[in-house]
């Protein structure tokens, strides 16, 4: 009886929001949306979400264009200047800076005023803020961490490590068993950036990491060297798979699937292909990157994908309504659930899908990352700097003896990039 009451109450609530949506804010006019969610699953989710918005606003004329994710990264520069849509997807933090600086993104600070968005989305506000203003809204984010083969850990009698010493001790046992500790593919460089993010944030803390990435600290410093020294311990042990420089991150997955490598430092998007390759949830598990320097507050990488209104858009009011709709608690809950994007909702009032990894990730980000939440190496650092630095990291992973040369090169590049 109680459950029936509950269901009908919920049904009433849904009916209420649906009707208020349809009658109160029935929008008119046009709304042109550009999306970079070109992979089949996210594309279907986005299209369904837009279809729902259309249903709520039958008089609104919505036109959606989906562009290939890689092509989008160059096309955005053209369409923001000429033929701007009303809403477009992009990434948070420094990745949006060039467009903010060029005056191509609309200031949407007004949306962030008040509790509706301001409070519920407080955790991602920093990533959307440049010069004290907000330039868009997030729609999803996901945690990074160490995904590992639980069955291999069990077989070797290992448990999830919590400190750097335990991490290394575990790794040594894995190597002794004839396997590699970590799989990684650095062909496209950014995977090495993930390792650096974690090693540096754990060795020197979030604030130092951000200062380094924004050009306030030097690369050739004792602190950065300490980070690389920690990294080198793993490299010298032979912890990483051989020939990682020839593989993309997907090409590095089979090593873990076949059991030649025990773990993968990756974003949550790696779970789907690992499951598709046949690993069950009993074999696959997740732990937070371990503490290195005691007392340094843990900070995490959690890249955020975003919606923006181009400054040259024609229907900015409709676009604002759409952004409000995207970040609303219900929409956030269902677009991020396991059947759709399979990531974390940005709205604090949303619920996280009952997925082992999403639940662990959500808990880690909400309770165990007091240091702060970083976006990712190539989103926090300016693009040019990210490129040079990640190339240096790849070189370091193959030839650790070149460290002096690499750090000197990075400082020279940093001087040019940040002084402009």
């Amino acid at each position: 009886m109680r459950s029936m009451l509950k269901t009908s109450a919920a049904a009433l609530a849904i009916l209420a929001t649906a009707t208020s949506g349809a009658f109160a804010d029935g929008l008119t006019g046009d709304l042109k949306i550009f999306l970079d969610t070109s992979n089949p699953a996210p594309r279907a989710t986005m299209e369904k979400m837009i279809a729902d918005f259309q249903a709520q606003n039958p008089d609104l004329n919505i036109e959606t264009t989906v562009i290939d994710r890689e092509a989008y990264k160059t096309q955005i520069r053209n369409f923001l200047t000429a033929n701007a849509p009303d809403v477009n997807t992009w990434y948070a933090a420094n990745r949006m800076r060039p467009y903010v600086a060029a005056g191509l993104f609309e200031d949407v600070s007004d949306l962030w005023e008040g509790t509706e968005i301001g409070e519920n989305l407080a955790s991602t506000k920093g990533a959307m803020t440049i010069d004290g203003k907000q330039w868009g809204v997030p729609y999803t984010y996901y945690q990074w961490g160490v995904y590992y083969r639980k069955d291999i850990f069990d077989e070797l009698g290992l448990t999830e490590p919590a400190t750097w010493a335990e991490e290394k001790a575990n790794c040594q046992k894995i190597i002794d068993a004839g396997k590699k500790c970590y799989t990684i593919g650095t062909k496209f460089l950014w995977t090495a950036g993930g390792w650096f993010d974690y090693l540096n944030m754990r060795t020197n803390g979030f604030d130092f990491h951000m200062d380094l990435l924004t050009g306030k600290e030097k690369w050739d410093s004792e602190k950065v060297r300490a980070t690389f020294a920690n990294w080198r311990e793993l490299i010298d042990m032979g912890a990483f798979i051989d020939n990682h420089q020839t593989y993309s991150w997907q090409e590095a997955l089979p090593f873990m699937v076949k059991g030649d490598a025990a773990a993968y430092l990756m974003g949550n998007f790696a779970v789907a292909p690992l499951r598709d390759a046949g690993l069950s949830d009993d074999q696959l598990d997740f732990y937070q990157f371990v503490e290195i320097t005691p007392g340094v507050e843990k900070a995490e990488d959690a890249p955020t994908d975003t919606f923006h209104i181009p400054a040259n858009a024609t229907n900015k009011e409709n676009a604002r309504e759409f952004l409000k709709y995207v970040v609303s608690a219900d929409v956030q809950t269902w677009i991020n659930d396991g059947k759709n994007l399979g990531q974390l909702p940005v709205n604090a009032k949303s619920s996280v899908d009952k997925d082992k990894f999403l639940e662990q990730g959500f808990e880690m980000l909400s309770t165990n990352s007091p240091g702060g939440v970083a976006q990712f190496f190539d989103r926090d650092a300016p693009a040019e700097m990210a490129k040079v630095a990640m190339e240096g990291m790849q070189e370091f992973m193959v030839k650790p003896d070149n460290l002096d040369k690499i750090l000197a090169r990075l400082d020279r590049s940093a001087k040019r990039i940040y002084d402009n």
Partner: protein
Amino acid sequence: MAYTIDAQTRRSSWWHKNQQQLTPWLFLAPGILFFLFYVIFPIFQSFNLSLYEWDGLGQAEFVGLYNYEELYWDDAFYTSLKNNVIWLLLYLAAIPAGLFIALFLNQTVTGIRLYKSLFFFPFVISQVVVGLVFTWFYDPTFGILNVLLGSVGIPPINVLGDEDYVTIGIIVAGLWPQTAYCMILYLTGLNAVDPEQIEAGRLDGAKGWRMLWYIIIPQLRPATFIAFVVTIIGALRSFDLISIMTNGGPFGASRVLSFYMFEVALSEYGFRMGYGAAIAVVLFLIMLAFIAYFLWSIYKEEKAR
């Protein structure tokens, strides 16, 4: 009656008088316009752009020769330049290889057309496919190359992950289609070899290498010239194989100028239009030197006739 008047006015019209001179220009006009607009004009635009610092969005800032000064200090630029030279030298191997395959296939055997098509096949398939096939071939863990090396007791080599081997590895992949191209040029050249001269050479006792060197190869000069031009240009504009096979890596060791230009100007982490244009200008000047040499040698030959 009306016809003659009409014909007379037409005959005396300006168009009729100049028809002979104008017609070729009318036919050429669309081509010339497109060439000017899409080739010549952008060249000057690139020259101009290389003097600016511009991210493709905001205001371009005039920096004079700063981009070139920075090129001078840029290690990656020298790596690319060095690799361009390696490409240029090793890629020329396609010419003798193409010649010998052509000589081999220039026989009358049943099914020779099939063999010819099989040898020509790599030129027809996309460079992207060639790149992927060779990437799998070189794969250090699963590739056939290391299986073959292992069977004769040589330890595995990570061709595309080693800064010393990577450029050569990509060039070998590029030689596969390029050899086919040179082969087809020589096959058509061999059709034009004069049988009487061969006959005369035989009577004088020439055969084997001497026949090839003194009788056949001189007659293949036009084919050799074209093969040379396309191979040099092909080597200098090598891009797609690098992009597919290594993406410039490991740590930039397999870049060439055209790829480096793309990287700094147009790729995900780039958007330094001025710097990219400066690299393009350097590449253009190198190509110009070669093209000028070719044009000059054609001119000399024509004059000698």
